[in-house]
């Protein structure tokens, strides 16, 4: 059949079109379902926020409660906050301002040093993972995130066993006695915060246009100068965000610290735990509230830095 004949045939053939009828009942039912859905969606976030924040809110409220009891709220006071810093003992023999400040100092020293080390290592790891190819890369990639998901208690116990084994061997070969302390806590914190830094920095690097580095090399910069002129400044918000996250995690950490600190090295969370063993006092509520505030601030800055765009050129 020639094409011209096909054209003529298609004109003569009858064309059927689809029609439709409106079912009013079905239509109003659909509208009702949609309305219920809308209300449900509205309550969803409210409910989950309540679930997340109610216990914390209770703690914050009772840190201002003018009574030792947590059963009733009998008026607003800043007494407990003042107590913490004035050394007034409200929580028995375990509490003193000197001990509190001592543990806070430990927390800060551990946090700062661990954060510095894990930021450098974490950044280097994420650079290697996103910019180069080497045997075992996929394995490292998978293993790197393990500390984020495995139970922290496992990490704490394994670190304790590891240090004991090393120190035992050291004692046997050299005769010197070494025990756990600030240094082991720092190593422990570095071990579990590297992953978090790496995750955040890697997200930043993945967002970065790799052509920028090529452009720098094209314009005469060798690899070293390309890194410092292009890669590093562009990854910096990610590195800072990762570092803040690591710092917050280190400050708040209890389990790893507990297992790696040995005797006499208290950090703030370990100190608070020590107080809790006796009784929940309003001072603990006050300390916790301050810690929540500090953590929230740090995480907020970290998130703000991660959200900063303009990475793509």
């Amino acid at each position: 059949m020639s094409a011209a004949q096909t054209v003529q045939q298609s004109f003569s053939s009858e064309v059927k079109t689809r029609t439709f009828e409106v079912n009013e009942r079905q239509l109003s039912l659909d509208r009702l379902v949609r309305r219920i859905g809308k209300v449900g969606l509205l309550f969803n976030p409210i409910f989950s926020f309540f679930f997340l924040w109610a216990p914390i809110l209770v703690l914050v409220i009772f840190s201002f409660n003018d009574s030792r009891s947590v059963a009733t709220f009998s008026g607003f006071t800043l007494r407990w906050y003042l107590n913490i810093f004035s050394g007034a003992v409200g929580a028995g023999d375990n509490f003193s301002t000197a001990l509190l400040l001592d543990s806070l100092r430990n927390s800060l020293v551990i946090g700062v040093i661990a954060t510095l080390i894990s930021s450098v290592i974490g950044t280097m790891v994420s650079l290697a993972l996103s910019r180069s190819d080497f045997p075992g890369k996929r394995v490292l990639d998978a293993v790197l995130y393990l500390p984020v998901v495995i139970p922290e208690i496992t990490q704490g116990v394994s670190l304790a066993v590891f240090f004991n084994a090393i120190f035992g061997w050291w004692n046997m070969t050299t005769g010197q006695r070494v025990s756990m302390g600030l240094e082991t806590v720092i190593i422990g914190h570095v071990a579990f915060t590297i992953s978090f830094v790496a995750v955040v920095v890697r997200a930043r690097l993945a967002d970065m246009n790799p052509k920028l580095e090529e452009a720098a090399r094209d314009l005469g910069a060798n690899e070293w100068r390309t890194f410092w002129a292009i890669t590093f400044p562009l990854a910096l918000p990610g590195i800072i965000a990762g570092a803040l996250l690591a710092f917050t995690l280190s400050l708040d950490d209890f389990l790893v610290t507990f297992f790696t600190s040995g005797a006499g090295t208290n950090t703030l969370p370990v100190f608070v735990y020590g107080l809790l063993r006796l009784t929940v006092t309003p001072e603990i509520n006050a300390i916790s509230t301050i810690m929540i505030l500090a953590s929230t601030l740090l995480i907020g800055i970290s998130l703000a830095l991660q959200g900063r765009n303009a990475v793509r050129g």
Partner: protein
Amino acid sequence: MTPDVELRQVVKEFSAAGKSKRAGYQVRAVDNVNLQIAQGEFFAMLGPSGCGKTTTLRMIAGFETPTSGEIYIRGKAVHDIPPFHRPVNTVFQDYALFPHMTVIQNVMFGLRMEGVPRQEAQRRAEEALDMVKLSHAAARRPNQLSGGQQQRVALARALVKRPSVLLLDEPLGALDLKLRKEMQAELKTMQQRVGITFIFVTHDQEEAMSMANRIAVMHEGHVLQVGTARDIYERPVNRFVADFIGETNFFVGNLVEKRDKVGVVKLADGATFEASLPLDASSVSEGKVTVALRPERIGIFPPGEEDDMPREVPLNVLEGVLYEMDYIGTDTRYTVEIAGTTLVVREQNVDYEDNYDFRLGQTVKIFFPAVSATILQE
């Protein structure tokens, strides 16, 4: 004179992603490419995506190393030379401007890396920005500029280095049509002014034809044809080139006789006509061939009007059935069936009204001179 850029039997293989890596499975992105690009030439590499044009460009820039073959820039083999030591600069597809630097800092970057003192770098960067008419935007950040302005900064940043060769990787791809036309003209003028060799990668055949002195048409890693826009349009070497550049009719027939520059082709229905042999006449032999014929080179007449046909040149006349006719403003497109193949004929609408009265299903006559048709190997 030695060519500015020369590629000799360049091959680039990538290992395919995933499992097949273990089996040693390789993909040839660029397959035995030979090119010679003269100094001061505006050279375009044209082809569909995945044809190897960008990989070829990246090998010249130094971002990829050829699997085998050699690349020479100004007569020097550049195999071991990293990108930052090559006298070549690139304008990237998405410009790749440094987002954390101002426009002037972007332009100065390359000079500073060369060790040019700050003041001189600043002066030269300002000159370069002046050349692309962006002096007023020197203190701005790239994300405060429009696409066209970013494109100009990228150009200034590359040209300020005074490279021997400027590489452009689809530099106009992200711009809208109007701006693209403007930038095409501007790039062409700029190339003539600075006299630097431009190597330009594009998938847009019109862009390549309007800007380049010479075009290399690439497909599946091969360079199929290198020549001027006219060569490539009028005398494509094979079916792919003819099809990729502009609109083309193909019909299959038998080459029954080869003469000096023309051959006689016999169609399935027994009709014969003359068509030109390709530039390399030995590439076709008698037997089954494809004939490429541009729609605008064909004339069409309804029956009884043959007397109007021009008589100055010998013409091929064939008979067919008209089964579609579309008015598209500047032209009218006629679809005609001849010996089992459909042919598009495009006639310019020079008058307000049609000259002839065509009806669908009618037997019509089409005509074309032998020079307008090219015989290609099937």
